[in-house]
């Protein structure tokens, strides 16, 4: 039992290394593996190659690595706290909030200021990131406020979904009144991408996540207790209300930050925890948390790789790839679990 866990963890870690290198290696420009190695180990290589690897592929792979981990961990936390297998980063309306923030900036700025933000480069990028974080945080604070007031998890879940609908509706109205090129740049943002984060912002993103991810690991005991249901958790000494808020807050911040930098990435957060439960056959978060973190990174790198496969040149939208891979995973795991339930 314990050995299996260790073996799988090592396998996951190894696959991350492999996929990371594959992400550096593969792309529209063919660069030999030896040169890729030289470029990242600081050796002397063709300047163009070096630029492609260090300025484009490396930040992109790093973004995918960190974003995947963040979404998977947030997904696991939400599925546990809401005790609902379909809970994921997008359910609480947090990603809708981020989208709304971006929509305001991208769509309204062109309309009101006369200058389309999407066309002003770096400053526009920063503004979009900030808008996404503000939008996501606003929705999340609203959710946390409501979480204090309502008793049931399902109620909260439904309210989250409703907030999502409202945000989508407002975005629809904004789109209707906006210039065509602004709508287009908003749609592109909505497709999600690990490549939009440029140079300096990557480091900011990685640092934020490097702080948040270990913090969320501290919640394993709380999450294990929450699995038992409110009554038992409370009887075992947990302040359920505070625990629920902490977990929602943690997951919300993770989703907000990832969405701000990469756009709404669907299905990763939903699929990875299911995948890990299927592999490790446990609901112990001391195993599931690190497992989800690793598997999330690996899957994000894989999706990024597929999106950029030679032949697709301009790169497929990551969101389509994650959905194409994630949806079958969720379906398969749930279907398999249904069979196992009747097995004994």
């Amino acid at each position: 039992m314990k050995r299996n866990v260790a073996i799988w963890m090592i396998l996951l870690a190894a696959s991350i290394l492999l996929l990371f290198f594959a992400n550096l290696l593969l792309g529209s420009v063919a660069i030999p593996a030896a040169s890729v190695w030289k470029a990242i180990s600081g050796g002397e290589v063709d300047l163009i190659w070096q630029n492609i690897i260090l300025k484009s592929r490396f930040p992109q792979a790093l973004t995918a690595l960190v974003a995947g981990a963040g979404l998977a961990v947030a997904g696991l936390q939400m599925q546990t706290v809401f005790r609902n297998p379909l809970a994921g980063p997008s359910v609480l309306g947090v990603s809708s909030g981020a989208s709304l923030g971006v929509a305001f900036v991208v769509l309204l700025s062109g309309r009101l200021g006369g200058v389309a933000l999407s066309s002003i480069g770096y400053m526009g990028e920063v503004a979009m990131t900030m808008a996404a974080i503000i939008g996501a945080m606003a929705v999340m604070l609203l959710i946390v406020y409501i979480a204090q007031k309502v008793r049931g998890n399902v109620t909260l879940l439904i309210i989250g979904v409703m907030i999502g609908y409202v945000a989508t509706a407002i975005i629809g109205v904004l789109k209707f009144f906006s210039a065509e090129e602004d709508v287009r740049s908003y749609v592109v943002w909505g497709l999600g991408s690990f490549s939009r984060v440029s140079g300096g912002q990557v480091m900011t993103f990685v640092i934020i996540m490097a702080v948040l991810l270990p913090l969320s690991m501290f919640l394993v005991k709380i999450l294990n207790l929450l699995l038992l249901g409110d009554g038992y958790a409370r009887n075992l000494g947990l302040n359920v209300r505070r625990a629920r808020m902490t977990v929602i807050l943690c997951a919300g911040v993770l989703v907000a930050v990832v969405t701000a930098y990469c756009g709404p990435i669907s299905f990763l957060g939903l699929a990875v925890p299911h995948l890990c439960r299927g592999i490790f056959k446990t609901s112990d978060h001391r195993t599931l948390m690190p497992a989800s973190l690793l598997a999330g990174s690996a899957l994000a790198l894989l999706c990024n790789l597929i999106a950029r496969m030679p032949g697709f040149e301009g790169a497929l939208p990551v969101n389509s790839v994650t959905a194409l891979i994630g949806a079958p995973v969720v379906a398969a795991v749930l279907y398999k679990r249904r069979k196992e339930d009747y097995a004994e």
Partner: protein
Amino acid sequence: MKHTDTIAIKDLAIGYSGKNSVKVVAKGITDTLRSGYLTCLLGENGAGKSTLLRTLAGFQPALGGEIKIMGKSLKQYRERELATVIGVVLTERTSLQNMTVEELVGMGRSPYTGFWGRLSAGDREKVDYAMHQVGIQPLAGRMVQNLSDGERQKVMIAKALAQETPVIFLDEPTAFLDYPSKVEILHLLHRLAAEMSKTIFLSTHDLELALQMADRLWLMARGRGVVAGTPEDLAMDGTLDGFFTRKGVAFEKVTGLYRVEPEYHDKIRLKGDATACAMAAKALRRNGILAGDDVESDVTVEALPAGGYKISKGGANATLAVTMSELLELLQL
């Protein structure tokens, strides 16, 4: 003696307080719960059994009065501390997946484990001991989603034992179980109370079983508060008689148990072997006929020493019935 007062309740009022309305479910509850005893809480649906248990477990505030646990007011307990004093087994069915019995019982150690919730060797011993006490060691590696209702209930009891609390509250632990499992669970709880000196307090609808197995009963009825005592005392002073009897239910003082009491439309006199008569009386009572050796009737059924029954109606010739169904048929029931 090993029986000490663990919980003292004084003039307790329970219920729910909303923003502008207070709904009192029961008030004026005053009694004590003692260690080493299995105390059963009986009452109709809506009498407030769950509310009382929830209030005693600290899940909801009392509307008035005082609850003292181990000499200290419930309000003064911190969450973590209370978790080492009261263990609960709830009616809510957990939707746990992919967790072994051993892991679930291990969750009972949570109040004692550190930041990551890792079990020490000592914790593991206590988990083993708890599983041993409840007799679920063979299930240790099984996934909880594959257990029967009875097994699951035992696992939750083992969890409460692993929690090492002097007090255990159980909310309808016998609901949803088949009869043998109900008996088994109550036997188990009775033994645990006596052997481990635990204060065990449970709510149940299984009147018959509670009357036979409980050391003490708490009777709860809407608007009447709580009456407590040993089942026998409550039987003899007539409390039980008045508490649950209604049309169709009678309380038998001799056995101290309830009996289904139909409306009789006929009478038959019984005589002969006592066991055979009792069986005949039972069958006849079900068919609305009051039967016994002290009943005046022109129909007499005599249980024969060789087996079978002889039926004599007034002056007519006596007929013989070998089995009970023949007897009922001949009496045209």
